[in-house]
C-alpha cells in the first residue's frame, strides 16, 4: 500500500516508516511564533530551563497581529519579544515587515518536503508549496524551540480534486469557500487534505496559498499540494534550501475522495458568524456594508491587490464605506507602490495600513462599531473577530470586496466584466 504526502514527510522526519494513526517524534525544520502567541512561548521556554534555542537559524519571531502596537499591554508583549530575540540572538521580523504566513515562505525559511510548526493556526498555508506545516500552541512551540523536535500523530488524508476552468470573476478564495461549505467546519478535524486537479494546476502559487491557508477552517491539520514546476520555481527563487518534493503514491490510502467541478462556480461569500456558512454572492447582493478589507494571510498578496485595484481604478469607494487595505508584506507593499496600485487605492479613498494582519483579529486598524457590517478577504468571520461581538463579518475574494466597497452593498463582481 502506498503513502500519502503526510505519511511520507513525517516518515522522513522520524527516520522510520510511519502510517496514518502512528505517533512519532519528528525533527522540525523550522518554527516560529507571532505577537499573539510569543509571550507564552517565552514563558514556557524559560520554564523548560534550557540554556539556548536548538538552532537559531530555524526559528523566527514575527510581530504582525497588532503592529504597530495600539496600547501599552501590546507594547509590553512586543518589548518582551525583542528582548528575547536579543538575548538568544534569534531573528525577529518587527512591525511593518508583514504577516507571518507571507514572510515564512517569501523569505525562504521553508521549502518542499519540510516539516514546519508555527504558533498560529494558519501555519497550514505552506502546504501549497509542498510543506507539511501545521499550527500548534505556544508551549508546544517552546518544546520545539528547545529541542528541535515534537511529537506528531500521522493524520489520515482526504483527497480533494478540483476540476474545470474557473469562470471570470471567480478565484481560489471562492473555490476554498465552496469546499469548506461542503466539508464543514468540523469535516476534516485531525486529518490532512491533499488538493489536486486541473483548476489547482492552473492557479498561480500565490492563489494556491489562499486555499491551503483555509484548510484549518475545515479542521484540517495540513492542506497539501504537490510541487509542480511552478512551485519549484517559486521556492528556488526565494530559498537557498534544497527542495525535496514529495508526492503521494498512486495507491495511497485516503479516508475520502471529494471532487468539485468549478467551471460554473459563482463568487462565494461566507456569512456571519461561521466560515462554513457559505452562499453564492447572487443571494446576498444588496446587503449594506460599512467596512471593506483587503489583506491578511489569506488574500494580501500582490495579485490580490492587483485584482482589487483593477476594479477600483478611477472610481471612488462608496461615501459610507471605510475601505482598509493591508499588504501582506513590506515587499508586496513596495511592489504595489511601484505598480501604481497604492496610488489607485489612495485616490479611490482607501486607507492603506502597515503590512501585517490589519483589522483581521480586531485589535487595531479598524474595529467595528455596534451593528456594523464588514466584508473582508480574511479567513474567519467569528462573532467578535473584528473587535466587536455586535458586528457582522462576510468573507469573500478581493474582487468581490472591492466591487462591494464601491457600491456600499455586497455586489457580484461579475457586474464589472471589463475589469476582471
Amino acid at each position, binding site marked *: 500500500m502506498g503513502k500519502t504526502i503526510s505519511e511520507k514527510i513525517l516518515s522522513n522526519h522520524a527516520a522510520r516508516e510511519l502510517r496514518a494513526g502512528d*505517533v512519532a*517524534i519528528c525533527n522540525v525544520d523550522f518554527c516560529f511564533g507571532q*505577537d*499573539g*502567541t510569543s*509571550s*507564552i512561548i517565552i514563558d*514556557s521556554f524559560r*520554564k*523548560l*530551563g534550557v540554556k539556548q534555542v536548538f538552532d537559531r537559524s530555524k526559528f523566527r519571531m514575527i510581530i504582525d*497581529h*497588532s503592529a504597530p502596537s495600539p*496600547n*501599552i*499591554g*501590546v507594547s*509590553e*508583549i512586543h518589548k518582551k519579544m525583542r528582548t528575547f530575540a536579543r538575548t538568544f540572538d534569534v531573528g525577529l521580523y518587527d512591525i511593518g515587515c508583514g504577516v507571518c504566513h507571507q514572510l515564512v515562505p517569501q523569505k525562504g525559511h521553508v521549502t518542499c518536503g519540510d516539516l514546519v510548526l508555527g*504558533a*498560529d*493556526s494558519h*501555519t497550514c498555508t505552506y502546504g501549497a508549496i509542498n510543506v507539511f506545516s501545521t*499550527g*500548534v*500552541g*505556544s*508551549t*508546544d512551540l*517552546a*518544546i520545539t524551540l*528547545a*529541542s528541535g*523536535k515534537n*511529537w506528531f*500523530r500521522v493524520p489520515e488524508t482526504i483527497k480533494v480534486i478540483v476540476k474545470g476552468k474557473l469562470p471570470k470573476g471567480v478565484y481560489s478564495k471562492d473555490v476554498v469557500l465552496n469546499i469548506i461549505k461542503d466539508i464543514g*467546519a*468540523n469535516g476534516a*478535524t*485531525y486529518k490532512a487534505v491533499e488538493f489536486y486537479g486541473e483548476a489547482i494546476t492552473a492557479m498561480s502559487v500565490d492563489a494556491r496559498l489562499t486555499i491551503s491557508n483555509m484548510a*484549518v477552517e475545515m*479542521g484540517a*491539520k495540513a492542506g497539501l499540494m504537490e510541487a509542480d514546476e511552478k512551485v519549484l520555481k517559486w521556492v528556488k527563487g526565494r530559498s537557498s534550501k534544497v527542495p525535496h518534493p514529495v508526492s503521494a503514491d498512486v495507491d495511497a490510502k485516503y479516508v475520502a475522495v471529494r471532487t468539485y467541478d468549478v467551471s460554473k462556480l459563482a463568487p462565494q461569500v461566507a456569512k456571519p458568524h*461561521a466560515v462554513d456558512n457559505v452562499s453564492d454572492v447572487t443571494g446576498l447582493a444588496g446587503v449594506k456594508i460599512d467596512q471593506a478589507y483587503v489583506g491578511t494571510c489569506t488574500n494580501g498578496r500582490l495579485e490580490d491587490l492587483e485584482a482589487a485595484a483593477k476594479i477600483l481604478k478611477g472610481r471612488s469607494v462608496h461615501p459610507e464605506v471605510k475601505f482598509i487595505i493591508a499588504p501582506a508584506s513590506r515587499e508586496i507593499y513596495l511592489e504595489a507602490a511601484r505598480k501604481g496600485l497604492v496610488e489607485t487605492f489612495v485616490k479611490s479613498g482607501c486607507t492603506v495600513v502597515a503590512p501585517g494582519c490589519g483589522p483581521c*483579529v*480586531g*485589535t487595531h486598524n479598524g*474595529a467595528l462599531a455596534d451593528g456594523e457590517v464588514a466584508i473582508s478577504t480574511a479567513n*474567519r468571520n*467569528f*462573532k*467578535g*473577530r473584528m*473587535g466587536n*461581538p455586535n458586528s457582522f463579518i462576510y468573507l469573500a475574494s478581493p474582487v468581490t470586496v472591492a466591487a462591494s466597497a464601491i457600491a456600499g452593498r455586497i455586489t457580484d463582481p461579475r457586474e464589472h466584466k471589463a475589469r476582471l
Partner: protein
Amino acid sequence: MKHYARRLKVQDNVNTDYVISGRYKFKIQDPKELAKHIFEDIDPDFAARVMKGDILVAGENFGCGSSREQAPQAIRSAGFYAVAAKSFARIFYRNAFNLGLILVECDTDFIDDGDELELDIEKGKLKDRAKGLVFDTKPIPSVMKRLLRDGGVVEHFKKYGGFKFD
C-alpha cells in the same frame, strides 16, 4: 469528587475566539484576569457562574479556530476541572493536555447546565447524577495520559529531558 456542569448555550463549533476574545488576549497576560472574560462574546454572564471544580460541557468541534493557548489556560484559571464535549479541534486538544487540563469526548446532549457530574477517567465514565445517566468517554490516547500524569508537557520534558512515551 463532585463536579457541576457548566453548559454553553452555543453547542457546536465553539471557537477559541469565543473562549477568549483577541481584544483581551493581546493585552492581558495574567491568566486570572483573562479568565474573567471567558465566553464573553457568546454568553456575557458565563464567567460569573463558574465555580471551582466545574466541568465545562460543550458540543462538536470545541476549541476550533485560533491556536491561542490562552483559551485552555483561561478555562483552567476560571476553575474548571475538565471539559466534556462531543469532539475537540486538534490544536486545542494538544494545548489542553500540554497544560494538564483534562478533556473527555462523550455524548453531551443530555447534560443540562448545573447537573451534578462525576468523572472517572480511569474507567472512562461520565455520570450525570441529576439524571442518573452514565456516558462512556472515548479512551484518552496514551500520549495524553502520560502528559496528564506528569503534570503537563513542560514537567514531562523536564523530567526526561525530552519526550518519553514508551
